């Protein structure tokens, strides 16, 4: 719409001419943000774990010893040199399934997380900036979405959309999972709304839309990043829960559907604890990595949560 870069903060106006031009600032901001997160030990651990899963998902065909749905092996085998984590009741290699399963969780986490965050930003910011009747309506709707338990809602919607694919599941997760972020962003918008720079923008005749998304939004980068990782974590857990219930496409190999098949084929009785342990541990680790990264993101917006300053 408008190709001019975002207005520089007032303090840099006095600094002459080394304002970089072109796409560099965004790139540099991202690197600086990453460095800030990296400085927090817990977040560093999270970034490392996340990187491992991203690489696994990306290079799954190279890393996996067999295909994910290749069922030409013995059934219910225990761990061996050929099958490090054993085989499933259908004769598939568990390790290969775990490796390929990472793709589903990573993609759903990032896509559904992004969708939910986009809705949260849109609703949260305009809701925080608006006053009067519209704000009350938004308040009611968001609170409704907050109190309706999301998993049952997802289950009901997904059951109506029979055999829905991954894209549909992501959308369902996003629809049910944006309210928390919206509420957090709204309260921050409300506190920013009365700051001087917003008043200045109003007096200079900027429209509300522009004030909200060009003046206020850049100040909430850390909060939005935080709610993005939160939403992605929730999405990963939700997808695994739905797959575990056998909702959605159970033929897709995901960590949740692996556990669905494990339970339905009595892996508990055959004593294949690795088949139970591996997929769930991966879900937990991936979700933890995002939570850990959020410790660093928290530090960006709230200096009190920065580490290493004990009483």
């Amino acid at each position: 719409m408008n190709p001019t870069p975002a207005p520089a903060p007032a303090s840099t106006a006095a600094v002459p001419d080394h304002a970089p031009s072109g796409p560099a600032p965004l790139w540099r901001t991202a690197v600086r943000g990453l460095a800030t997160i990296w400085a927090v030990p817990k977040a560093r651990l999270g970034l490392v774990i996340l990187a491992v899963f991203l690489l696994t998902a990306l290079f799954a065909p190279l890393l996996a010893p067999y295909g994910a749905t290749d069922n030409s092996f013995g059934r219910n085998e225990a761990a061996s040199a050929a099958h490090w984590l054993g085989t499933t009741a259908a004769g598939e290699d568990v390790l290969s399934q775990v490796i390929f399963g990472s793709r589903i969780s990573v993609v759903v986490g990032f896509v559904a997380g992004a969708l939910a965050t986009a809705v949260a930003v849109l609703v949260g910011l305009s809701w925080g900036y608006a006053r009067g009747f519209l704000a009350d309506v938004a308040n009611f709707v968001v609170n409704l979405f907050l109190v309706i338990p999301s998993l049952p809602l997802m289950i009901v919607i997904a059951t109506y959309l029979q055999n829905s694919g991954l894209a549909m599941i992501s959308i369902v997760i996003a629809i049910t999972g944006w309210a928390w972020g919206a509420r957090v962003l709204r309260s921050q918008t409300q506190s920013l709304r009365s700051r001087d720079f917003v008043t200045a923008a109003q007096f200079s005749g900027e429209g509300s839309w522009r004030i909200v998304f060009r003046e206020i939004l850049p100040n909430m980068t850390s909060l939005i990043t935080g709610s993005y990782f939160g939403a992605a974590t929730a999405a990963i857990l939700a997808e695994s829960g739905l797959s575990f219930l056998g909702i959605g496409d159970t033929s897709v190999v995901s960590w949740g559907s692996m556990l669905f098949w494990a339970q339905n084929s009595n892996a508990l009785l055959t004593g294949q604890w690795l088949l139970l342990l591996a997929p769930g541990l991966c879900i937990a680790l991936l979700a933890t990595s995002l939570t850990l990264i959020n410790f660093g993101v928290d530090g960006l917006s709230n200096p009190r949560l920065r580490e290493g300053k004990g009483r």
Partner: protein
Amino acid sequence: MRYVLSKIGLLLLTAWAAITVNFLLPRMMPGSPADAAIAKLSRNGTVSPATRAAIEAQLGVPGGSLWHQYVSYLDSIRRFDFGLSYTFFPQPVSELVTKALPYTVILVGTVTVLAFVLGTLIGIGAAWKRGTWMDSLPTLSGSFLSAFPYFWTGLLLLFFLGYQLRWFPTSGAYGARTLPGWNGAFVSDVLAHAVLPALTILITSLGGWILGMRNTMINTLGEDYVTFAEANGLRSRTVAIRYAARNAILPNLTGFGLALGGVVGGSLLVEQVFHYPGVGYLLYNAVVNQDYPLMQALFLMITISVLAANFVVDVLYGFLDPRTRR
């Protein structure tokens, strides 16, 4: 009193909205429950228009305008009439739901209160000892535990404590050999069956409370009155409990109401793992069998229960914090 009245008003309004969502959901979706049932039937042969009409009437697919449907829907809710279940035909849905609800409410209610108290205490300790191992151990393990999928924790406990060590029964709410009744044998049997599901919910939800309390407590520790109390030379335990924790617990209590939805969702999965005959297991059965009337009723009951719990927390909050009553 005005505060309580306004909360009751909000509860009724939210409940109405939830009921309306429940009404609109199936109507916004492609296909209809009757279509699905007829599709199942037509696998065994052709379905005549007469049969179709009979099924639609039976499954409560009312004709008429949307408004007309809505009014009769509200009326049937008032009479607690949710139609008949497909799966457990011809049992009324309301009967199935009332049978399952107590199991879930008691299990989730008890464990959630326990987890809240325990998590809050650990959170207070972690915030007070910020920067030491007494902080990093609970926060790290807390964030790891809260990332556990409920059903996975359940599966692991079931496998190791149930199947391998045989410490606890593995499925159901009571054994096949005990007869329901108010006697010692039955009650202890029910308790033994509840241990694993309860432990699962406790382990998985504890982390969230620890982290929540720790963060609000750290914010409170930065307040002037805490610094003042310290400057006065009060014992550190007094400062931590009487000054900081007392104020930090309020925001954490708000979180209680909101997190409840998540715990309920998780416990649905846990019930499926342990075949615990509560609402979650029933919902699972409804989903697998595409039993739409049962599914809708369960969703409504779960939502209303969470709303009611939130209402109780809100009212309690009003009594604990006079500022909210203004």
